[in-house]
């Protein structure tokens, strides 16, 4: 007998699939190559892998604060009841509708969850050279998550734990809830 949580997961997966099927598509190759150009440019501009990592995450953040509106609009989502439901929405609907990939949620608690990507369109045909071995190539995704979740009143910290480009089996991102933001209205006339 499927539990309520299981039923919700299935419903979200269907929603993600349906939403992805309706959107316009482009070749994953174009996407991956464009991202490669971005990373190459950052490495040229910053020359230091650690600085480039910070900038990649920031770029992801800038994207995330915008992408969230498309997710909310196209998928007609209701408010999430819990942080683990947020995790499922991000994985089954968000990642699916933008990247067309299936992402699993692991270790979900009320303040943390992990996302496991076995496919990563950002990194198709990419290999990191020796001097860039510490590059968080998929760090953009961490930024996207941080930006998107902040727009829906959650301050989170995201870190790239594993990456197939580092030789790992999957790409794994940890999302840690730091604070739920409360809406305030300050009348600056008073």
């Amino acid at each position, binding site marked *: 007998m499927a539990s309520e949580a299981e039923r919700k997961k299935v419903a979200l997966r269907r929603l993600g699939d349906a939403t992805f099927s309706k959107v316009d598509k*482009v*070749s994953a*190759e174009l996407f991956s190559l*464009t991202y490669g150009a*971005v990373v190459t440019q950052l490495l040229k501009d910053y020359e230091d892998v650690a600085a480039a990592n910070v900038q990649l995450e920031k770029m992801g953040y800038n*994207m995330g604060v915008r992408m969230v509106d498309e997710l909310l609009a196209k998928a007609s989502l209701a408010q999430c009841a819990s942080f683990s439901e947020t995790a499922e929405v991000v994985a089954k609907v968000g990642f699916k509708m933008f*990247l067309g990939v299936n992402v699993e949620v692991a270790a979900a608690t009320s303040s943390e969850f992990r996302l496991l990507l076995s496919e990563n369109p950002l990194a198709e*045909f990419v290999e*990191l*050279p020796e001097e860039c071995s510490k590059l968080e190539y998929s760090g953009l995704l961490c930024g996207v998550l941080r930006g998107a979740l902040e727009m829906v009143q959650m301050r989170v910290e995201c870190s790239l734990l594993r990456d197939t480009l580092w030789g790992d089996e999957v790409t794994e991102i940890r999302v840690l809830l730091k604070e739920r933001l409360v809406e305030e209205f300050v009348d600056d006339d008073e």
Partner: protein
Amino acid sequence: MLKLRRPPCFSQLCAAQRVVSQSAFAFLFSEMIQYSQTRVNTADELIAKLEDAGVGVGRRALELACWRERSSKRETRALWKSLFGAHADSLQKVQDSDDEFMIVEKEPLVNAFISSAPVNCAAFVAGGRTPSPPESGRLGRRLAAAQFPAEVSAHDNEEGATVLLIKFAPEVLEREKRQA
């Protein structure tokens, strides 16, 4: 600091071309432009930066396409199609001219999301041959790398579509004549 590419295995290359949402590309491209804007001072510099980015993309796209097609023969159509799919509406020959071809794009993918932009962001798309107005870039570089040196420039036609004009270098025509 270049990023190498893992030589793809045969099955990966042959696998049906994967897709992502157009939105994902649009958001990435938009952010790329915004980032570039913070590093340059003029519109011309922005164009140059975008073209540079396009060069890298074009070069790698060509490598991938060549592996796929398993030949180094005329790649233009295959490349264009593989990257831009249905968006490249036509490849035509210009009348009265042996060395000029046109590709007409009714809605250049990369311009679709940028309205009233001072810079034609399709500059990214071609491949960086100066002096050219917005839109040189990837195509020029790709053609050059495929042994088809050409000048690529972009123009708007009456219907508001973007026309990429490809003028092949004389040696290309010579070679084609010899091979015919």
